[in-house]
C-alpha cells in the first residue's frame, strides 16, 4: 500500500509538469535531427538518438533513449528496417502511442526516396540484408531534399500554429540546397568513374550520384565482419581490377581498412557518413562539403 501511495505521488508530481511549448522531436539519426532543426528552428526541441560515431544498425535500447522516446511528439527515422534491432525495443518499453507506426507522430524518411539495392531474394545467408533496400539514403543530397518537403508538411501538421514557418523554412532550405548540390556535383566531377572499396555498403546513394564505382566491400555480407580470407579475396580482386580508394566511416573497425591499405597501397578515406562524423560536419551543408573534400583529397593522394 505504501508503495502504491508513493507510486501515486510520483505520478501526480510528474504528470503535473508543464508541457514545453516547442514540438518534441526524437530523431533516430543525426541527418534527420539536423534537418528537423533546419526546418523547425526554435519551434522544435530536437533530440538525436544516435551519433555518427555509432553503428546505427546496432544501438542498445538504453534507458536514456526509452526516457526520450516516452516524451516525443514526433519520431523521425530512416525506417526501411534500419532501426529494427532497437526501435521496437524502445517502443515496447517507451509507452508512447503518439509515435507508433501509422500514427501522426511517426515519420519514416525512406518512404520518400527511391530505394536502391532492394534484394531480389531474402536469405540470411546473404547477411543482414534489408528487405526494403539499402537504408543509407542520407549519403546523397537529393534524398535530403526529397525528405525535407514531406517532413516540413509533417511538422506543419503536428504544430499547425507554426505551419507557415515550417513551409517558409523548407522553401528557403530548398533554394540553398539546390544551389549547394549544383556546386557539389561540379566540384566532384573528377570522382566520376573512380573505383573504390568500401568497409560496408554504406554509400550506394553517394556513389550513384557521383558516378563512383564500388568494386567490393570489406564485409563479405552486410553485418558480418570481414575475416582474413575475405580480405585476401578483396586484395585478389584489386589485382585484377585496380581501385583508388578505401572508404570507411568513423564508427567502423579501422583494422581491416589498415590491413588492405598496407598491402594494396590504396588511399584510405574516412567519410563522416552522418552529420557529426568528422569535425565541423554538424550541419548538413558542411557534411557534404567535407564528404566531397575528403574524397577529392584521397584521390589526389592516391598512387596513380
Amino acid at each position, binding site marked *: 500500500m505504501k*508503495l502504491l501511495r508513493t*507510486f501515486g505521488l*510520483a*505520478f501526480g508530481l*510528474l*504528470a503535473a*509538469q508543464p508541457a514545453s511549448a516547442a514540438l518534441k522531436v526524437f530523431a533516430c539519426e543525426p541527418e534527420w535531427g539536423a534537418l528537423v532543426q533546419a526546418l523547425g528552428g526554435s519551434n522544435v526541441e530536437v533530440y538525436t538518438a*544516435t*551519433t555518427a*560515431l*555509432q*553503428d546505427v544498425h*546496432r*544501438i*542498445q*535500447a*538504453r*534507458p*536514456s533513449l*526509452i*526516457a*526520450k522516446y*516516452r*516524451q516525443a511528439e514526433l519520431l523521425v527515422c530512416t*525506417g526501411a*528496417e534500419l532501426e*529494427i*534491432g*532497437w*526501435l*521496437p*525495443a524502445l517502443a*515496447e*518499453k*517507451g*509507452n*508512447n*502511442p503518439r509515435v*507508433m*507506426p*501509422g500514427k501522426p507522430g511517426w515519420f*519514416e524518411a525512406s*518512404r*520518400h*526516396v*527511391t*530505394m536502391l539495392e*532492394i534484394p*531480389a531474394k531474402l536469405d*540470411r545467408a546473404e*547477411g*543482414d540484408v534489408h528487405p*526494403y*533496400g539499402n537504408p543509407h539514403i542520407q549519403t546523397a543530397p537529393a534524398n535530403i531534399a526529397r525528405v525535407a518537403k514531406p517532413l516540413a508538411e509533417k511538422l506543419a501538421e503536428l504544430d499547425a500554429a507554426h505551419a507557415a514557418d515550417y513551409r517558409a523554412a523548407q522553401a528557403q532550405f530548398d533554394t540553398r540546397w539546390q544551389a549547394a548540390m549544383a556546386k557539389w556535383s561540379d566540384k566532384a566531377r573528377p570522382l566520376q568513374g573512380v573505383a573504390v572499396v568500401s568497409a560496408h555498403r554504406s554509400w550506394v546513394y553517394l556513389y550513384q550520384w557521383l558516378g563512383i564505382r564500388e568494386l567490393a566491400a570489406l564485409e563479405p555480407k552486410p*553485418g*558480418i*565482419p570481414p575475416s582474413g580470407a575475405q580480405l585476401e579475396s578483396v586484395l585478389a580482386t584489386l589485382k585484377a581490377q585496380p581501385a583508388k580508394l578505401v572508404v570507411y566511416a568513423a*564508427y*567502423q*573497425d579501422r583494422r581491416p581498412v589498415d590491413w588492405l591499405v598496407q598491402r594494396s597501397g590504396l588511399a584510405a578515406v574516412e567519410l563522416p557518413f552522418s552529420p557529426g562524423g568528422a569535425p565541423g560536419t554538424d550541419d548538413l551543408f558542411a557534411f557534404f562539403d567535407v564528404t566531397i573534400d575528403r574524397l577529392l583529397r584521397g584521390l589526389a593522394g592516391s598512387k596513380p
Partner: protein
Amino acid sequence: MFRIPRAAIGACIAIGAPCAAIAADAGNAFNPKISLILDGQYAHYSSEAEAEVPGVVLGPETEFAPKGFSVGETELAIESNIDDQFHGWATVALENEDGDTVVALEEAYINTLALPHGLALKFGRFFSDVGYQNHQHAHAWEFADAPLAYRALLGNQLKDDGLQLRWLAPTDLYLELGGELLRGDGFPAGNDGEDDIGASTAFAHVGGDLGASNSWRLGLWHFDGKASDRRSGEDIETGFSGKSRISGLDLVWKWAPNGNANVRNLVLQAELMRRSEDGTVVSDPDGAADSSAYNGDQLGWYAQAVYQFMPRWRVGLRYDRLSASNEVANPVAGTSLELLANDGEDPQRVSAMVDFSNSEFSRLRLQFNRDESRGGDAADNQVILQYIYSVGAHPAHQF
C-alpha cells in the same frame, strides 16, 4: 517488440520503382513475425553427485543440463500487432524431459500499445520484470546457465500467469514503476488454486547515461508469494506450505567507446536477492511424510563482466554465491529437511566463458564452471560447449 509495418501498397505507389517486388508478397504481409531459437550443448561434469544445493529446496527443472550432447529448449516465438490497441506474443518451447519431447507454453501474453500517460498493461503468461536477468529468455543470457541465486531462489526464472501494469515517467531520467498480480504457480510460490491471487510483485527501475560511453540501470524489487503444498524434487518430492518473500537489487552497467559497441564493449551486471520463507516443509509427502516447521532466510548474489575485445569475440567472468540461515525444527537425517537445515555451506561457483557470434543470429560459446554449489570442499569442474541460433525475424533485445 513489434514489427514496423509498412503499408505495402501505399509505399509502392509513393516510391514508384519497387512496386512489383512489394506487391508480390502483399498476400502474406500480415503474417506475424516468427522466430525459432535452436539451442543445444555438449556438457561435461567431473562430479556425478546429485545437483542439490544445501540450505535450499530447489524448484522444479533446476537440474544441470544432461551430460554429453543434448538439445536445449527449442523455442518458437510468434508475435504480431493484433490491432491498433493490442500486441500479442507467444513462445512455445519444445523440451526434453526424461527422453520425451514435451511442449511447454513458455509465454503467451497480450500487451497494450496505446494506453495514455505512459502506462502499459500486459496480461497472460509472461516472465516477471523483477530483477535484471529474469525477463530475458535463456538464449539471451550471457552464460549458458542461470546464476546460482536465480536457480536456488527463483527456480531459474520467475514466470507466471497474471497481469502487469507499468508506468514510465515523462522525464529525461529513466524511471519505471510497475507491479504484477499473479496466479502464484511460479516457483517459489505454489498456490495450488487456493487463492485467486497467489503472488504479487512490485519493481522500480531507474537508469541513464554517463557521458557518451556509459549507460546504466538500477532496479529494486519485491516478490510476495504463498505456497500451499508447493512440490519440487525429482524422485522424492518435497512439499512446502507457507509464505515466500524476496527482495532484490540489480545493477547493469554498459560501456562502449562513444556508444559504439561494434568493436569493443563491456557489460557489468550484478544482482542481489534475499528470500525469507516461513511455513512447513514435508519431505516425501506421498510416502514417509516427514514434516518440519521451517523459518529461513537465504541470500544470493552474483556479479559478472562480459567484454567484447574484437568484433564477434567476447569473454566473460562470473562469480556466484549463496548463504542461508534456516531454522528447521525437525531435520530428519537423509531427507531434504536435513539438506535445508544445512545452512553453513555457502555454496559458490566461478564461471568463465568465451563466445563467438558470426552474426546477430548465431553464437557459439565455451564455458567453464568451477562449481561448489553442492557445498563442502568438493568442486565440480564443468565444461559446456553451447550453440544458440536464431532463425527468422530479426531480434530486438532490451537493454
